[in-house]
């Protein structure tokens, strides 16, 4: 259990770091040209991401991370 508590603490610290980073980074709205490109989106190819998620969920013990698993399956 201590392992889990320690991990939770690490993630809280990272989140705090992220929030602090928020204060000093960023762009103005007219500087969002690159970020608006389809290939710069967080999930640039949803079908590829969904296919990979399904494959790795079926073959490994881990899943998710970037999003939720969209649907369970009895994959074996």
């Amino acid at each position, binding site marked *: 259990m201590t*392992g*889990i508590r320690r*991990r*939770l603490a*690490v*993630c809280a610290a*990272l*989140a705090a770091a*992220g*929030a602090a*980073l*928020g*204060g000093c*980074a*960023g*762009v*103005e*709205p007219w*500087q*969002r*040209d*690159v*970020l608006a*490109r*389809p*290939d*710069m989106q*967080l999930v*640039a*190819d*949803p*079908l*590829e991401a*969904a*296919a990979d998620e*399904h*494959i*790795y969920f079926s*073959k*490994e*013990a*881990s*899943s*998710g*991370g*970037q*999003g*939720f*698993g*969209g*649907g*369970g*399956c*009895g994959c*074996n």
Partner: protein
Amino acid sequence: MQLKKRKPMRKLRNVGTPLAAATCALLGQAAPRTVDAQELAPWDFDTSFLIYSEADGRVQDLSLNGIARKELREDSFLNLTFALDSLTGASPSGAAPSNVVQTFTSPSGNASYTAGAVNPVLDSTFHDQRIAASGSWQWPVTRLTLMDVGASISNEYDYTHLGVDAKVARDFNNRNTTLSFGVALASDTVDPVGGAPVPLAPMLGLGNMASKRGDDSKDVTDFLIGVTQVVNRKTIVQLNYSLSNSDGYLNDPYKILSVVDAVTGSPVPGPAGSGLYRYLYEGRPDSREKQSLFGLVKHDFDGNVLEASLRYMTDDWGVDSQTLDVHYRWGLKDGRYLQPHVRYYSQTAADFYHTVLFDGRPVPQFASADYRLGEFDAITLGLKYGMPTKKGEWSARLEWYQQTGNADPAARVGVLTNLDLYPDLNALIAQVSYKFGRR
């Protein structure tokens, strides 16, 4: 200006050519440029066909997928997805290979299958079709807050899933920072062929269903909290923490463990009259708590994009994993691109993972020989090529996935010492996609 006598004009004469010529004269341009203006279709479609093929006669999956997206009103979207899968081939059952021929009763209880000496034990009795669909609606609650609600269903021969999810995302900091929070609830019903086995009960002979019960179910609750941050004009990072709780029937109903002699490593006789060696159906805990931390960075190098992510996962079954995933999108001329992909994955074994169980020792409370709960590393190498067309984009990718695992060292006794207790998994993934519509 004097009038020429005009013939009565047709109301809708074609004035295009004389108008173009007159405009040329006015503007003094030799050759007018052409016009390239396309109206956006109301729907976005993304479709793909995927082939997943494992070597050595193992699983093959053919999959057809589609996503349709429509903007309902400004910034409000409807997303619909569907997936069709057809699975064939054979899957490792969890039984260990041996130096003798082994016979097993198939899940239905009506047939049996064998594994030759030395060969890995694969259960080829399943063929499955799966259909899945989901829908979600995303809309801005306030100018800075986006809400997303969705539902998903899937069905296959022995498994049904129903799920709902909701997510809220709020922008801060001139929209440079986004905080997200999401919840997903799922209720899945497992109705295995022949019934769900009693955990750690022995495999019985043909027609004997005493080790089997009826169907069962499980509930899954997922939480996700994440922050996305624009670092600069060309860089964005994301950090997510997820918590997932599963409760109910978490076993794989078709997986078994071999019980072998502690000295010789040979299989021991099964229940009297069954004609089988001794195999036990696996039994996992009826709850699982997973936590994961996921970080992603995307950076633009003048039209080329590097995406790298790291995920740490830990759960209360004793599995810890790390995933490193890197894509580099290399832009070619005219919107075409080449994207190499490398993924490295590593996991530790679950506390109750046992490659084999030993005769004479007490049967543990939980045990599974499912290779997916074992200790292994996996690597994926892939290449994707994309090409825009007038109305959309074609892309194709080819990936190779290899898992290399380590069996439980304690299992290497007697005849098992030189057998492949944890065969590598080698799979080829090929996917062809076509996107068309608005983007």
